[in-house]
């Protein structure tokens, strides 16, 4: 345990600034793993990654290795990836199928729901009572799913998943309904990239519509390299008007929800006349009728953040998982989301577009990663210990608890820090 009092932690967050320690201090990072990743719902994976009994998928909650598996009864479980005996990580492949999980060290086996199955040479424990759950790999306190998106919570306390999701659960509904079969699957591989910066920089970047014209000038400005990111786009997103004046992204809007969740308004629609798109629209119309289909096709949100570790985009639908490694090292995993029942060609185009925007070799994400690493380095200076999150725009509070404001407002990031404080100081007397 570190010696940080809640008062000290609270002093690091001002209404419009945060102290650089929140990005640079390894002790605070340890506390975040315990108090944010240990108290919040954290995205684990999608049920379609473990379709058959015995299928497993290994990931982490914070720094803790977990296994999401489909048990022989068809139910999905999330258990710690740890042998009850001597603490050895049991499952060592990222994904696969197993009848049982066997620990390499002394051969103990576990059922696909993590329960203890068999202790080798058990006559050596004459006085020890084994309980298959207590001496299993250990179930995490809670896990729940919505449209197959599985979230885990290491703490038994706090709201259930749907309450925690709030209006973000509507977004998952919208994603599911945009698939002709009414459901999505995660079967298109994964882009994995690393940056030398704090995990929160990626979270903040996702709600930052102020940076693209500058960070991504080489792939967005006139004279920069235009490329289409979706069918129907003519040459890509323009952030500049005539004479190099930056076009404001304020019109898109920023939405700040309880629990740190945030989203941006959707990009302006484009006319997509491709054969596949028409076939896709026809499939939706067959199921929902033309009016509802028109609604479904309007993308109301761009980046949607499920604070702290996941974000989704409906543009080339994909899940982004933020995986902290250390105070200054973060992994990002990008999973394409397949709209089941849609024409195959749509998914192939989606994969190609994601290669361009989200691969480690991409034309876009690489510049963000550069900004994160330079921020991590720049903040080490002692000249100014505060990071400015003071940008505002006209804003209104809605009944749902959501705040709606302009696209380049930094309200989204201030919203993250309100949640950050709530988790970090949860045991602080009111």
């Amino acid at each position: 345990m570190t010696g940080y009092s809640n008062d000290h932690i609270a002093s690091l967050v001002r209404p419009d600034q945060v102290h650089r320690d929140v990005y640079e201090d390894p002790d605070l990072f340890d506390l975040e793993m315990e108090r944010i990743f240990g108290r919040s719902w954290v995205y684990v994976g999608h049920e379609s990654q473990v379709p058959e009994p015995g299928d497993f998928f290994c990931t982490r909650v914070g720094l803790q290795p977990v296994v999401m598996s489909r048990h022989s009864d068809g139910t999905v479980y999330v258990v710690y990836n740890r042998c009850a005996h001597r603490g050895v990580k049991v499952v060592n492949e990222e994904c696969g199928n197993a009848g049982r999980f066997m620990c390499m060290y002394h051969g103990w086996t576990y059922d696909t729901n993590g329960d203890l199955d068999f202790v080798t040479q058990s006559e050596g424990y004459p006085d020890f009572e084994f309980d298959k759950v207590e001496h299993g790999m250990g179930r995490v306190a809670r896990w729940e799913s919505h449209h197959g998106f599985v979230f885990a919570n290491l703490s038994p306390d706090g709201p259930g998943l749907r309450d925690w999701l709030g209006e973000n659960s509507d977004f998952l509904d919208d994603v599911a309904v945009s698939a002709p079969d009414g459901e999505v699957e995660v079967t298109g591989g994964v882009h994995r990239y690393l940056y030398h910066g704090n995990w929160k920089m990626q979270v903040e970047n996702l709600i930052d519509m102020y940076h693209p014209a500058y960070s991504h000038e080489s792939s967005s400005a006139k004279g920069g390299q235009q490329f289409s990111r979706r069918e129907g786009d003519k040459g890509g997103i323009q952030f500049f008007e005539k004479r190099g004046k930056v076009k404001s992204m304020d019109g898109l809007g920023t939405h700040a929800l309880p629990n740190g969740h945030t989203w941006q308004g959707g990009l302006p629609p484009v006319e997509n006349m491709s054969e596949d798109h028409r076939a896709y629209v026809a499939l939706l119309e067959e199921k929902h009728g033309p009016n509802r289909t028109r609604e479904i096709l309007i993308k109301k949100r761009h980046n949607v953040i499920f604070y702290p570790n996941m974000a989704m985009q409906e543009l080339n639908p994909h899940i982004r998982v933020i995986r902290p490694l250390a105070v200054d090292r973060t992994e990002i995993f990008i999973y394409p989301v397949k709209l089941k029942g849609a024409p195959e060609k749509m998914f192939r185009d989606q994969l190609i577009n994601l290669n361009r925007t989200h691969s480690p070799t991409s034309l876009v994400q690489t510049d963000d990663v550069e900004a994160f690493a330079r921020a991590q380095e720049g903040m080490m200076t002692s000249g100014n210990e505060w990071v400015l999150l003071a940008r505002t725009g006209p804003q209104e509070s809605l009944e749902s608890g959501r705040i709606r404001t302009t696209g380049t407002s930094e309200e989204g990031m201030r919203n993250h820090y309100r949640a950050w404080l709530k988790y970090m100081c949860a045991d602080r007397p009111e």
Partner: protein
Amino acid sequence: MTKNNRSGDNQSALGELLFVREVEQFLFHEVSLLDDRRFEDWTDLFTEDGYYWAPAEINQPDPASGVSLFFDDVPMMRIRFARLRHPRVHSQIPPSRTSHSISNVTAKRSGTGDRVEVEARFQMLDYRPGHDQRAFGGKYQYVLSRSDAGCFRIASKKAVIINCDDVHLPVAVPF
């Protein structure tokens, strides 16, 4: 008769040797264009419908089965490299330097002989000032075709790095 046969054998063995040597020389030239940052010239080596593919999974069957580290057709290569020439391509200031080496080259003609299938092993060192030097390596698979002028063109180049499923810092220059 025997003598003539042997001479014929030698002739064809020599022809094979010269052929593989010619392919090797082409590959050496090809990767040197990357190391010399002559990206536009590198792009021009590809046929009009040619492509460059670096899978993201070690046994990825094809670029349509999942995302890839690189999967560029010629128009995409032109966009990629024009971006690298942009004065504010922040993630490449300063730019990466690379050194490609190729070995274990095998080449076989297929079809009417205008098509050549090539396999090779490669290593690419990658250094961007201020960052640790990285070593990438793995297998190349090419399909080459001979142009009317007799030169090789690349119909496809596949580069499988052995750590393709690792978590990578940005990569700017093709393997």
